[in-house]
């Protein structure tokens, strides 16, 4: 029997091969058969979780609550120094200088990353904007969010801050940031399911030391991470509580 590993569908497309490399590394070092399966969307992912098929998951902060509370998952690690932050950007030549100048009916381009959307919507609240008073322009990825802005198909865009920072200079020069979140405690987490938990300590030890050798460092590089950092149970609980407080009436 092999274990099933999956990654929240919001991963950056250019990291696809990185996750396969990581999975190969994991299999070699745990001597376990682990199958990486990537789901196209959250519905398919949640079906698999609900059916008890998932043993290891790099989860979006939104999913961590139900993974821990309904499915008995436990946290392993998070990428060192990385937290999920969002920003709202507009065209550089726009007259708007403050997010509170955005008005009802504003067309806002966004992806379906739930935590980025949540943080973005939270930053629109001071302008009295909510899901009911904006027009959303759904976009496959952040490059397309930027394109919607450049083509004036949207007045504002909600970006994962990291994805925005990684846009080409050519695109970024034509945009400006209205507001950027500084939350620092919301992050993705690698989590382990009930059927695999007898390996938790072993995998944790492997992951938290993998940056110490060249081989491990190379694998981390392919994911764009500096290293994995242990998540304490209480830290995970705290983030879940935080997501609960925020995830009220926004989406």
């Amino acid at each position, binding site marked *: 029997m092999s274990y099933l590993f999956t990654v929240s569908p919001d991963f950056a497309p250019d990291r696809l091969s990185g996750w396969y490399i990581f999975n190969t590394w994991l299999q070699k070092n745990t001597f376990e058969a682990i199958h990486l399966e990537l789901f196209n969307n959250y519905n398919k992912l949640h079906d698999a979780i609900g059916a008890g098929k998932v043993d290891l998951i790099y989860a979006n902060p939104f999913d961590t609550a139900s993974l821990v509370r309904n499915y008995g998952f436990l946290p392993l690690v998070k990428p060192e120094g990385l937290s999920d932050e969002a920003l709202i950007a507009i065209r550089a030549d726009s007259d708007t200088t403050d997010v509170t100048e955005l008005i009802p009916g504003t067309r806002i381009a966004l992806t379906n990353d739930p935590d980025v959307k949540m943080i973005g919507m939270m930053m629109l609240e001071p302008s009295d904007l909510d899901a009911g008073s904006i027009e959303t322009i759904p976009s496959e990825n952040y490059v397309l969010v930027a394109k919607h802005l450049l083509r004036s198909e949207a007045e504002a865009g909600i970006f994962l801050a990291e994805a925005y920072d990684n846009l080409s200079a050519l695109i970024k020069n034509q945009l400006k940031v209205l507001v950027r979140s500084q939350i620092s405690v919301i992050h993705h987490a690698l989590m382990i399911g009930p059927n695999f938990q007898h390996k938790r300590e072993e995998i944790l030890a492997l992951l938290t030391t993998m940056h110490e050798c060249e081989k491990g460092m190379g694998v981390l590089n392919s994911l764009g991470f500096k290293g994995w950092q242990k998540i304490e149970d209480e830290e995970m609980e705290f983030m879940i509580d935080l997501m609960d407080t*925020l995830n009220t009436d926004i989406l």
Partner: protein
Amino acid sequence: MIVDMQPEFIVGEYKETTQHFFNGCSRKVFYTEIETPYPDGKLIVSTTSPEGIINHVNKAFVEMSGYTEEELLGAPHNILRHPDMPAVAFKDLWDTILRGEKWQGIVKNLRKDGGYYWVKATVIPNVRAGKVVGYTSVRRKPSRTKVEACIQLYPTLF
């Protein structure tokens, strides 16, 4: 423990009043009309014991309250209580969280320097192994129209 505010920390022209807390303690406070705008994109986070004693604050909390982390840890959360806040708001807060539910409201908080800042606060119980071990509050930037509505409403609730 909660102590009287110190006039030497107050910035600007101030008024003085004595607050009486739910637990029978009271405190002399000084407050000004100087508003500190809520910082864009930040969350102010704190957690308390089941009794409302602060046991964790983040950096944004420290910056906005004007107190040091040492002054905040171990203090009751009413260290931020502003005299313009009606008691019924906090009664509703405690009734709600004691039922195990989430509370949300617009709150005017008092700074150490006598100034104030408005927040949209959400408070939830922290349940660990079926037991409430404390509460977490997350504040974010409120909408100005909601704040204006509270400026009209709160004085009528005294």
